């Protein structure tokens, strides 16, 4: 049973990790917790669903989810967040909530509130080293691994990725080094959006697609971003995995209803004991 829960936790954790990656990138560079990340995920899930219906291919669906979420994310930056760059963080937060509501409303109007599902073939589990693993979990883990590899490739192997990390480390130093902020920000929002899109697609394939799906998981994604250390992509993924596994494995002991609160308790403990998270840098606290 423990092994089965572990497998479930890893898949669950990969979804949280991808969502947390989207949150932490924005948090580290644009410096605010983007509450619209959850609904950006939902947008990706719907785009993926439409593409999957049209093509029948999960690969195409993944591409559509990434593109749609990246566009939504970029539009949010260009139309709203860019104009608020010098405002207090609360303004950005409130605007992000506003964008989240707008997105959800638009999705509800466009697709209705009835649940929709990805028509994927379900199969009985395969035995891997004595563990019974549903094939869908393997597929989803593969998708997540590819997405993460691509994201980290962009961050660590390309020039724009290095610039992004430079801005995250020290925006002023990056500016005087001649890094053009607009280009970096556009790349950042595209990348964060794409990560959210894949997370939304995975969540949609695993569960159901509805306009509320992304918002529900937002708190867990925030918790993972904070646990991993703000601005640390690797930390976000690691923390997502930890939270996913913890939620699955521990709930038989703490009770099923408090499963959601677990993420919050972890987040609070981290903030009070080790505010820079698992892999984060020292953050200025006040």
């Amino acid at each position, binding site marked *: 049973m423990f092994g*089965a829960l572990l497998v479930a936790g890893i898949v*669950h954790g990969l979804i949280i990790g991808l969502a947390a990656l989207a949150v932490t990138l924005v948090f580290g560079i644009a410096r605010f917790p983007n509450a619209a990340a959850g609904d950006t995920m939902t947008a990706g899930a719907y785009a993926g669903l439409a593409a999957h219906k049209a093509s029948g291919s999960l690969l195409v669906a993944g591409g559509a989810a990434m593109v749609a979420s990246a566009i939504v994310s970029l539009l949010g930056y260009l139309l709203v967040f860019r104009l608020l760059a010098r405002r207090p963080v609360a303004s950005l937060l409130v605007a992000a909530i506003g964008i989240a509501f707008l997105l959800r409303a638009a999705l509800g109007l466009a697709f209705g509130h009835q*649940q929709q599902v990805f028509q994927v073939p379900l199969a009985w589990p395969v035995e891997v080293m004595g563990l019974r693993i549903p094939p*869908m*979990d393997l597929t989803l883990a593969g998708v997540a691994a590819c997405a993460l590899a691509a994201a980290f490739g962009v961050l660590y192997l390309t020039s724009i990725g290095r610039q992004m990390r430079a801005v995250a480390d020290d925006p002023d130093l990056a500016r005087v080094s001649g890094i053009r902020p607009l280009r970096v920000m556009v790349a950042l929002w595209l990348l964060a959006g794409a990560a959210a899109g894949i997370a939304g697609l995975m969540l949609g394939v695993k569960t*159901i697609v509805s306009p509320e799906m992304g918002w529900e998981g937002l708190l867990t994604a925030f918790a993972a971003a904070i646990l991993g250390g703000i601005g640390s992509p690797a930390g976000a993924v690691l923390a997502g995995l930890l939270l996913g596994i913890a939620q*699955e494995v521990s709930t038989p002991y703490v009770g099923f209803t408090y*499963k959601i609160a677990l993420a919050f308790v972890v987040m609070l403990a981290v903030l009070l004991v080790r505010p820079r998270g698992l892999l984060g840098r020292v953050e200025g606290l006040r």
Partner: protein
Amino acid sequence: MTITRRLALGAAAGTLALPNVVRAQAETFRIGALNPITGAGSPYGTGMQRMIQAAVEAINAAGGVNGRRIEVFAEDTQTSPQAAVLAAKKLIEVNRVRAILGTWSSGVSLAVIPLTNEADIILMHTSGAPALSTPPANARNLGYRFQATNDRFGRAFAEIAVREGFRRPATMAFNNASGIGNTDGFRRAWAAKGNQNGEHVIYEPNQPSYRAELLRVLATRPDVIVMGSFLPDTTIILREWFQTGTPVKWIIPGWAANPQLVQALGPAVTQGIIAVESVSNEGAQAFAAYDAAHRRAMNNQPGAANAYAAMTWDMATTLALAIEQAKSFETAAINAAIRQVANPPGDQVASFAEGKAAIAAGRKVNFEGASSVLDFDQHGDVTPDFGAFFIEQGQINRRYIVKI
């Protein structure tokens, strides 16, 4: 619908008159249709509202009640108690309705019933919570429940489990009043039959995974899992279950194990699921009339797809017959007449027109509704029959009827 169309045209033509003024020519009997158009009840709410309107059209076509037309004012509860309270206030105070029909979730009905009691008007609802039967909620006996209580659902589940020869049932419940009510009702009824209850898990809505919950239940090796669940969570749970490869049977409420579930999961996953639903009174004449109206109003969807819409259809008809019987528009008289027109003995009638004629001829009538035979007990609750539906090759087939 014709009324609203005319209204819209009136407004568009720039008469700028308030709705109440436009229709003030002849006095009408006003009722409120307070349905869950949005929120968790949205799959049913629109149909419920349309069927109140359709039933009222039929009543008005038959000459109205006591010579007056019935007029419907529709509002959305948003499946939220706070929004429902304000909507009910508006219906009562602004539209001056004399009865409210069709609240759906227990939370909404519990929040609205103090207002209808206070305004001395009747509330007809489809909620399952037992608290709605008794004081303080139903202190004035003005509340009527057209749906089986959750407890009765649970008893029907237990009957079916016995009949199918299950020995070790486990239960899983969505954490809300209805989900827990169903499984608690089952566990009580199961224990009352001298049986041992199995594992019981209550789960939260909107989870990305239910595997921990599922594995806990499956680890106890039940032969059947009885659910108190809704469509989205049932979809996710059955998906995860199928991928564990563990054989088990399922007994699921009909509002969750419905054609949408089959469509979402396919015939392989849903094979052998037992869906339990209070059966609409399908053989009855009233059901045929309701079904035709439902198909007209709802894009040719069959009436059996929305059991709650059949209940709201019956609400309007029952209320109208009671007014006709009472020969009065006073709440106390109407309230006293409801059991007279709905319960036996009496001539079985299937429509308002038929009942009106019989009442005019001085006969005692017994309305047999589209949703059930509609016999109210002393709490204003009905005891419908339950159907055991088996999902086979993607088809939902009724095998038998359970009476409790």
